[in-house]
């Protein structure tokens, strides 16, 4: 790991993103702080509607009306991106930070060849590059993401590519201008498991080669375990637990993280019932006053403090480093988990 006292590449502080609706403003991202260091791979994990994609879009200044960033800062290389003009943001997107979407077919232009899109991305941020040089660089990029017969495939359209190959093209485009950070929103969710393994292995290789940091947004805890150094678990717009991946997944402290892990079918318990999380995430326009997870929580459900007070982040020491947990009982639960493993 890189030195801890290095200033973070991305530093999000107290970010709140709201959407204005007829009944008032609804916050999809609530007071979120997170940082990503150079070359670090960080996951944001959560279920649909938890705000993980909105967080990614907020970082890139892509939240459209009626959404708006209501509070907080997004610092990239120390510079606050919140409030920058669209012109300024366009210099950053695809250059310093790039984005990989779940659905490459929706992100690629269907009526332009893959080569044209790669060249366009390159020359947008490097205007001095000649067309010929850009084309040569595009071939290099396609080779790097292991598209077979790269030179010929450059003139194919996205629909000529298979799903896995399209995602490779997305990675090539994301890498084109040597960004410092790639935000990948569910990059392998639409892929088959063997293709997912190929794409994850490729992503791992190219980010290591280029020293790019990755903010990976996913719902798949297996992918997190596989790929990421650190993990942030999101629930109802807040990061409820964060820490080193191995420690958090092996010994989750927040009841939500634990319940999420226990929802994954465990083949050694075939025939049993799974420990499902009852109910549904709260309606963001009618949030509980206390902890957002309290109505579904096996630990805190019905407890006075959980119902009335929003928990503050509590620092926990884990084997892999410090973690932060937004739960009133975090210290108690961490201590008990320690005892269980010690005995």
């Amino acid at each position: 790991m890189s030195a801890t006292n290095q200033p973070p590449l991305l530093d999000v502080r107290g970010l709140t993103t709201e959407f204005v609706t007829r009944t008032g403003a609804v916050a999809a991202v609530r007071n979120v702080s997170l940082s990503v260091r150079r070359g670090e791979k960080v996951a944001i994990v959560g279920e649909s509607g938890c705000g993980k994609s909105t967080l990614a879009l907020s970082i890139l200044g892509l939240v459209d009306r009626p959404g708006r960033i209501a509070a907080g800062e997004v610092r990239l290389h120390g510079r606050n991106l919140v409030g920058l003009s669209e012109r300024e943001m366009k210099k950053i997107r695809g250059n310093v930070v790039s984005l990989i979407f779940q659905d490459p077919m929706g992100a690629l232009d269907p009526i332009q060849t893959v080569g044209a899109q790669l060249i366009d991305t390159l020359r947008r941020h490097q205007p001095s590059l000649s067309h010929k040089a850009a084309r040569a660089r595009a071939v290099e990029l396609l080779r790097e993401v292991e598209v077979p017969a790269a030179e010929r495939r450059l003139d194919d359209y996205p629909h000529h590519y298979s799903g896995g190959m399209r995602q490779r093209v997305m990675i090539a485009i994301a890498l084109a201008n040597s960004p410092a950070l790639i935000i990948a929103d569910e990059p392998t969710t639409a892929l088959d498991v063997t293709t997912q393994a190929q794409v994850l292995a490729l992503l791992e290789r190219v980010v290591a080669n280029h020293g790019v940091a990755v903010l990976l947004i996913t719902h798949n805890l297996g992918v997190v375990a596989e790929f990421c150094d650190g993990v942030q678990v999101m629930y109802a717009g807040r990061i409820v637990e964060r820490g080193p991946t191995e420690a958090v997944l092996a010994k989750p402290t927040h009841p939500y993280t634990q319940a999420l892990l226990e929802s994954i079918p465990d083949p050694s318990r075939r025939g049993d019932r799974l420990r499902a999380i009852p109910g549904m995430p709260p309606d963001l326009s009618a949030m509980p006053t206390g902890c957002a997870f309290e109505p579904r929580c096996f630990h805190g459900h019905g407890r006075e403090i959980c119902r009335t007070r929003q928990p503050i982040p509590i620092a926990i020491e884990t084997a892999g480093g410090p973690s932060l947990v937004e739960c009133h009982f975090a210290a108690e639960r961490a201590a008990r988990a320690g005892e269980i493993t010690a005995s």
Partner: protein
Amino acid sequence: MSPETATPLLIVDRLEKSFAARNSNPFKPSREKLRAVDGISFTVERGETFGLVGESGCGKSTAARAILRLVEPTGGRVSFDGIDIAGLAPEPMRKLRRRMQMVFQDSTGTLDPRMSVRDLVEEPLIVHGLGDAAARRAKVDAMLELVGIRPEFATRKPHQFSGGQRQRIGIARALVLEPELVVLDEPISALDVSVQAQILNLLKDLQERLGLSYVFIVHDLTVAEFFCDRLAVLYLGQVMESGAASELFSNPQHPYTVSLLSAVPRVGTKGSNRIILEGEVSPLGSGASTGCAFRARCPVGRDRPICASDRPVLAPRGTGDHTVACHFPGELRAAP
């Protein structure tokens, strides 16, 4: 239920479904056939869950539809409770459908947005002409309660429910006819993991209470291993390996099964020794007519002559009814 409990509820024998491959010239129809289902055989016992596992394009959904004759099979035999389905006239087939139902992945697409939940669950009863209005209503309410939809929500429309609840409604629609066999086509794939667990628990409860048999189509191997009693791993319309879930996952023999299991990212294991297959599933032009369907991607047989010339047949291997279609079973092992 019929008295002859010794025979399996469902026997699928060399089932085939091929489609005419698309051709660029519309005036010259292609002779080439896309064999979506290419001679699949398996049996489903009463009360068990049989899994059809594989990646997209392996033919698992087409196989399920061919079993229910939602698409007409182009070859092979399907026998349900001793009745040969392929030869059945439309009317007896329609009657038989009451006993074999299907739950789809996308419940939103199968529920008419203008109908109330009560009407949606009642519809199959009306189609099959079962009971009078009062009896149907009682049955619908009982069914909704069984799947965990509160009766006071019965007048609501599908869009007023969450994805998990809509899947419960889809299950209620399938089960209200009291079928014996339910084909579940990726019923939890579109759901969040915590909701997946709720639906899996519900399916298990219903199976125990109602004595249902399931054909469970699934791409998620973790779910398959947890939920299925026996299963078949499909690749390009053929069974690569089949057997009891516990045996198959602990002792996989086919290189495809081994690679597939190794590709699953899991919590608690860092897969540095992962087997990564090259290439992708390509149904056309794979030359699957001769030799093994998997050989183009196979780490074991890619360059072996026998794999190119002879199609391996399913042969017993391991314990129980474990069978493998491979010339070199057990050769590829996942590193621990």
